[in-house]
Every structure is written in structure tokens, then in C-alpha cells.
């Protein structure tokens, strides 16, 4: 009864950059849509429906898809808007999947974007915490659900991430040099991805170690840039894929899911501050998704991953939480080169989020890059050469609490 769905095309508006003063928001989106269509034989009228999303407080336009409708060919089409913080892009893509899987539509386009040069994203992120923090300071903890708010350290996203990084390093018996090392690997991977924002060919651990500490152990070189850019993907049903004659160079969606835990920088569960590096929700979702995808042992059955790491220590943490390596094994795997593009389990050949972060696009870029790797179409030298059967793409957001996981593969799951 379940309907198989495939990604048949991934388009970008161009290279992600920090400023696009030459275009407005709809004009930023439009080339990504044209690019995704251009890689297929489809015309705009062949698209049955659109799912779109970004983090609109960052640009100061409420529901900007209303304004942009012409630019993504949305006039007189079904359009749904999804937004879930850092996971927005993945949530948009998942909604596009359900548009097809439901049987209501056959060909659906998912679009995620951010144009961060028009607003101030750190101000946007502060907006998550401030109202709660103010009421906490003035009136004591919120008692509406017997849970308070704790661990509101630092400002924006970096303060909370530092707690997580410290905890991760202690658990994995690793040091700040491991974060420097993985950060350097991502920036040099990005140099092989023509669409990545911060491209630093041959970036070394020493280069990263020169950057100043923001909130120990996180340095400036461990954080993500604010990027402008858009991504569009086309999803189709199995029947349509056959009808279009598409069997090769498409990526089947084998499993997907999302999950949420509690807010705050340390998950506060039953009155106890749990470890922010625990990320139990990621394990729960991954387990569910692997079961849907028919994956018994992710360490063997999954050949590479695109993970969402706003901060470099997460490029070590997520492969463990996703079950791709043993808990605490990432630093050693990194040191022996296993995470490199030519390693045994490449992590973020694209350069990841620490190299490119257009927020509403980022979690979809993980899925898009995973799809391109499955299709064998990753450009500029970041295509993994080893045989790939399954790829996992991961998204992360909220206040350290939202997770999305997707498994894409070369062959569909038999239903």
C-alpha cells in the first residue's frame, strides 16, 4: 500500500555566498527552481504542488512565499509552507514526500532558502530565548508543566553549543584539537564543492586553531557562516519515475522521520538537567528510520552521511548518535581518515553546515547532497568514489531539540 517516492532532481540558485545585494528574496529563489527543472525534461506545469519554507523572521517578511509565488511558478498551484527552525529544509522536504506518498500528487517541488544579508540572524536567534529569559528573571520559572527553564547560558546559538561541546569532548575523551581537525576537513571538503560558501582548499588544523575562542571550547573557526542561497528538489512517485523513463540517477526515499525533545540548552527531563550531548531523540528517530528503510546494521549498510552541524564538534557527535560509528569512536575515526571523502564512512563531502548555512535551506541541502551522491552527480570533486548503496541525511534545530533523519538509496524498499 505504501507508495515509493524518489528524488529526481536537485537544483541550486548558484554558489552560496554571504551577500546577494543584486537580488530580492523572490529573485534569489527563482534560479534554483529553474535549475532543478532544467536538469529534467519537466516543465513548470508538470509540477503538481509546492512545499516551501524558510525562517522568515531572519528576513523580516512574513510568509514570503506569498510574495514570491510567480518566481517559483506557484500561481494557481497548491502551496504549503513549513518552518521548523534549523530543520526547516528537511521538514519541507518531508512534507513534499507526504504530498506524493499520500497519493494526492505525483510530482512535487520542495524549496528552501534564506537571504540573510537583509536581516540580522543572531538577533533572530536571540528572539528565541529572550521572552522566556525575561519572564524567568522577573517572575521565576514557568510552572505550567512542572518544568522550569534552566541552562540559559550565553546568547544566540553559540552559548548553548559550548556546553554541548564540553560534554561531548569529555564523553569521547577528545580535545579541542579534534574539533579543529574536523573543522579543517569540512572547509577543505567545501573547496571541492562549487556551491559551498566558505571554501578553503587545504585548510589545516593549525589554520582553524588560529581563530579566536568564542565560548570555550568553540572557536570562530568552529562556527557556521550566514549564507544566502536557495535549493529546490523534485520528488516523484514510482509510477511517474517509470513513466518519465527514470531508473538510473535518481535517489529513492527509503526511510524518513522527525522528532522533538524538550527545549533549553540542556534537555530538562523530569526535573533533571540531562546531558545536551546525549541527543536521545536523534537515536530514537534514527532507529525508526532505519527500520523503515530495511537497514539492519547502519555501520555496514550505510556508506556515507550528510549531517547538520551548526558547530564543528557536532560533525563528530552526530555520526555516533546516528549509529554510524560506536559511541565515542568519532575522534579515532577522524584521526585515521575514515570521515574523509575517500574514507570508509565519508561525513559531509559537501563541506557541511559549518561551511555553508542558509538556514531555511541547510537541512534540505543535506538531503539534496545525499541525493546527488546516490545519483553520482556531486560536482567539483566531492563525489564519493566508493560504491554507495545507502546514504543518511540528518537535520537539527530548535533549541537543541529537533531532529530529522532520512535514508536515501539506489534501490527502493519493496513494499
Amino acid at each position, binding site marked *: 500500500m505504501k*507508495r515509493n517516492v524518489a528524488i529526481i532532481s536537485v537544483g541550486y540558485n548558484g554558489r552560496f555566498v554571504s551577500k546577494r545585494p543584486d537580488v530580492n528574496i523572490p529573485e534569489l529563489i527563482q534560479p534554483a527552481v529553474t535549475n532543478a527543472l532544467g536538469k529534467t525534461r519537466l516543465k513548470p506545469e508538470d509540477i503538481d504542488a509546492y512545499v516551501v519554507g524558510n525562517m522568515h523572521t531572519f528576513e523580516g517578511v512574513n510568509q514570503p512565499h506569498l510574495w514570491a*509565488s510567480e518566481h517559483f511558478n506557484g500561481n*494557481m498551484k*497548491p*502551496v504549503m509552507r*513549513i518552518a521548523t527552525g534549523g530543520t526547516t529544509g528537511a521538514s519541507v522536504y518531508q512534507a513534499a514526500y*507526504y504530498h506524493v506518498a499520500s497519493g494526492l500528487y505525483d510530482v512535487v517541488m520542495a524549496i528552501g532558502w534564506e537571504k540573510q544579508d537583509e536581516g540580522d540572524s543572531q538577533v533572530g536567534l536571540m*528572539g528565541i530565548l529572550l521572552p522566556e529569559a525575561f519572564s524567568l528573571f522577573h517572575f521565576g520559572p514557568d510552572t505550567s508543566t512542572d518544568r522550569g527553564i534552566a541552562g540559559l547560558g550565553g546568547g544566540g546559538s553559540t552559548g548553548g553549543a559550548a556546553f554541548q561541546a564540553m560534554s561531548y569532548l569529555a564523553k569521547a575523551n577528545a580535545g579541542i584539537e579534534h574539533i579543529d581537525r574536523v573543522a579543517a576537513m569540512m572547509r577543505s571538503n567545501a573547496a571541492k564543492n562549487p556551491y559551498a560558501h566558505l571554501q578553503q582548499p587545504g585548510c589545516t588544523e593549525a589554520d582553524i586553531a588560529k581563530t579566536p575562542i568564542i565560548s570555550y571550547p568553540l572557536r570562530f573557526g568552529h562556527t557556521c557562516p550566514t549564507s544566502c542561497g536557495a535549493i529546490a528538489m523534485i520528488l516523484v512517485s514510482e509510477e511517474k519515475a517509470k513513466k518519465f523513463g527514470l531508473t538510473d540517477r535518481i535517489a529513492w526515499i527509503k526511510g524518513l522521520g522527525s522528532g522533538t525533545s524538550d527545549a533549553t540548552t540542556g534537555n530538562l527531563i523530569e526535573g533533571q538537567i540531562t546531558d545536551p550531548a546525549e541527543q536521545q531523540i536523534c537515536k530514537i528517530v534514527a532507529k525508526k528510520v532505519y527500520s523503515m528503510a530495511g537497514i539492519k546494521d547502519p555501520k555496514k549498510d550505510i556508506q556515507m552521511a550528510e549531517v547538520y552541524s551548526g558547530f564543528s564538534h557536532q560533525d563528530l557527535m552526530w555520526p555516533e548518535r546516528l549509529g554510524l560509528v560506536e559511541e565515542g569512536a568519532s575522534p579515532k575515526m577522524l584521526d585515521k581518515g575514515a570521515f574523509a571523502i575517500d574514507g570508509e564512512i565519508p561525513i559531509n563531502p559537501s563541506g557541511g553546515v559549518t561551511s555553508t548555512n542558509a538556514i531555511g535551506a541547510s537541512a534540505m541541502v543535506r538531503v539534496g547532497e545525499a541525493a546527488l551522491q546516490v545519483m553520482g552527480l556531486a560536482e567539483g570533486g566531492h563525489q564519493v568514489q566508493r560504491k554507495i548503496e545507502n546514504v543518511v541525511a540528518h537535520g537539527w534545530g*530548535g533549541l537543541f*531539540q529537533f531532529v530529522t533523519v532520512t535514508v536515501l538509496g539506489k534501490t527502493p524498499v519493496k513494499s
Partner: protein
Amino acid sequence: MEKVALVGYKQTKHTFESPVARERIIYELVKSLYKDMGITKDDIDTFILASNDFTDGRTISEVFTVPRIGAYMKDETKVEADGLNAALYAYMRILSGLYNTALVIGFSMSGSEFRVPLTQAYTMDPAYERPRALINYYSAAALQAGAYMKKYRFTEEDLAALTVKNLENANNNPYSARKEPDASVDKVLGSKLLYTPIRQAHVSAYADGACAVVLSSKKMARKFTDKPVWIDGVGHLMDTYYIGDRDLLKMDSLAGAAKKAYKMAGIKNPRKEIDLAELHTNFASEEPVFTEAMGLFKPGSAKDVVKNGESRIGGSIPVNPSGGPLGANPVNATGLIRLAEASAQLRKEAGKNQIKGAKTAVVHAQDGPGAQSNTVFVIRR
């Protein structure tokens, strides 16, 4: 195709200033819905919220609301539009066969915590409309209403009578925020002019409130209720953003969405087959235009519809028997409330406003200036 049912619904008593905070409102609403249905959060497979970071006044606003609805360590997502679109997404998720049950919730504090016209102003583009400050949700509705009234000789008195019909229904609805026992045509005509022909009395009642529904697959529905309401047709379409490019009277996106929903539900003649309509109208003047675009009444017939009471309770197609958004319009929840109210009618739970023998209802939600985007459901008992 698999069928999906609404198996539970509940809304808050909407107010202009809630005595408790937003998180508490939705916590209590969802808790009591679960209690009414005799279920727990663990009976829900997927949770879909409808809210908006602008109306919530905070980025990633669901950060603090997901634990309140029982989504902790569960599958959750957020639609940034009216709650009926979240119900549409839940419907798709259940149709996919991956989930059996979904909780859908829409909410806002649009009565007391933010200025609705300001969040509306932020949907206007910053390049053209916002700096010019001529077209906003109010003036767009006024231009539409003016065009309709001029073309079809629908008078200010007719519009006032239609407004009173809705206010009377709202008076009998225990959940509405706006109660005007002395509502009259004269009082409406005496209310403050905003943008001709729109007066303050025509504007919906922006309120604090929330609405939640539980949807279920067919195989599970009877486990939850012996009165399932079936979602038999859906349609949603978006028109161009620019008011000057749209046919404000034909409303192509609404007409198209309704047509799709009717086709899916096997409805050939909506005027005969639909027993009631619950519409998301931000202004009373939208009712004639919407109902005609949806094929419920003949184009240009609003004068007669009002005169003959065809859209009243007891008429041929009662429109907003709940009072509609004129009684309560908590932004993000309003369209979902239409679904709950129409379901109450089909389940014979609508109290004083009950329509006898109602079996098929049409439900609507809108988004954007001048109802740019429209979503339509056909539901049956």
C-alpha cells in the same frame, strides 16, 4: 484510497484577553481533549502545529509549545499557515500509511499579545507594497467588497444584515469571544468607517484562543469514536500576490480549490448537496464573494440570499452557523475552528446553532492579502 476521519475536536472559549499564557492554553486544551476521548499522548503518532513566528513574536516559536501538546520525544512538525493546512498535512501523513493518528493544533494570542494588522503588514512585500502603504488586508478587502457591491447592487444595508446574521449566531455560540446581544442593522451602519464600505463592525474578532483536532485512519477510527466525520475531499490553491493581477470577484484560487474538493468527494451540484458552510472570513463582506466562488450560491445573488435568509440557520445553505470569525478569529486557529464547528454540526453537537439533518459540510481557510491562498475540505458524517 484510504479514508481519514476526524475523531475528536475541541476549542477554547476564545477571549479578547486570556487569563493564562499561550503555553498553558494549549496544554489545557490538549489535555482535556485527550481526557474527553479517553486517550493519552501515546495514542498519537504524529503532531502537527499551525503557528507563525511573527504572530508568536519569537523565532522557532514551537520550541516551547511542542512539549505542551505531548510531542516530547515524538514526531512533530509545524505548518506556518492557518490550522486547516496543518489538518491537510496530517490527512496526507495518514493517507501515506505511515501513521494512524495525528493531533493538529492551531493557536494564537491575537486578541491581546500582538497587533494583527502589524503581522499582516509584514506579509506585504518590503519592495513595493510596504513602502507605499496603500494595499493592506483591510484595503484589499475593501476594494473587493466595493467591486462586488457596485456590480451586484448589494447595499450597505444588505451587508449590515449579513453581519447581524453572523453576530446572532455568535451570540448563541459558547466559544465565541464577541457577544453583541443588541446587534442590529442600525448599529452596524453606525459603526466606524475604516475603508469604505468596510466598517469596524464588519471586521472579524481577533482573539486569544486555540483549537485542536485528532485525525485517524479508517481502521482505527471506530476505536476512538462511534461518530467519525470523514474527510472526503480536499483542495488548496494559491493565486498571485498582486491584488491588481487577480480577479477579485471570481477568486480563481478559491473556486479552483473548491472544485477539486467537490470532485474528490463526488459532489456534482454543491448548491444541492452541501448542507452547511464554515468559512474563514476576515471581514463580513467576504462572505458573498467566497460563497459564490465556491458555487454555493448563484453569482451576484447575495442580495436575495440575505433577504430570503438562505444563509441563515434553517436556510438552504447556512453559512457560518457558528458565527464564524466574526465571533472569534484567533489567527492560525481560525480555519481549524471551522473544521471543528462543521464537525460539531455533523455530529449533532452544535447546541443552540444545530442545523437539522446536516450530513455534508464544506470548510474553508484563507491566507495572504485579499485571500490569496485558499484551502477547502468537504466532510461528511
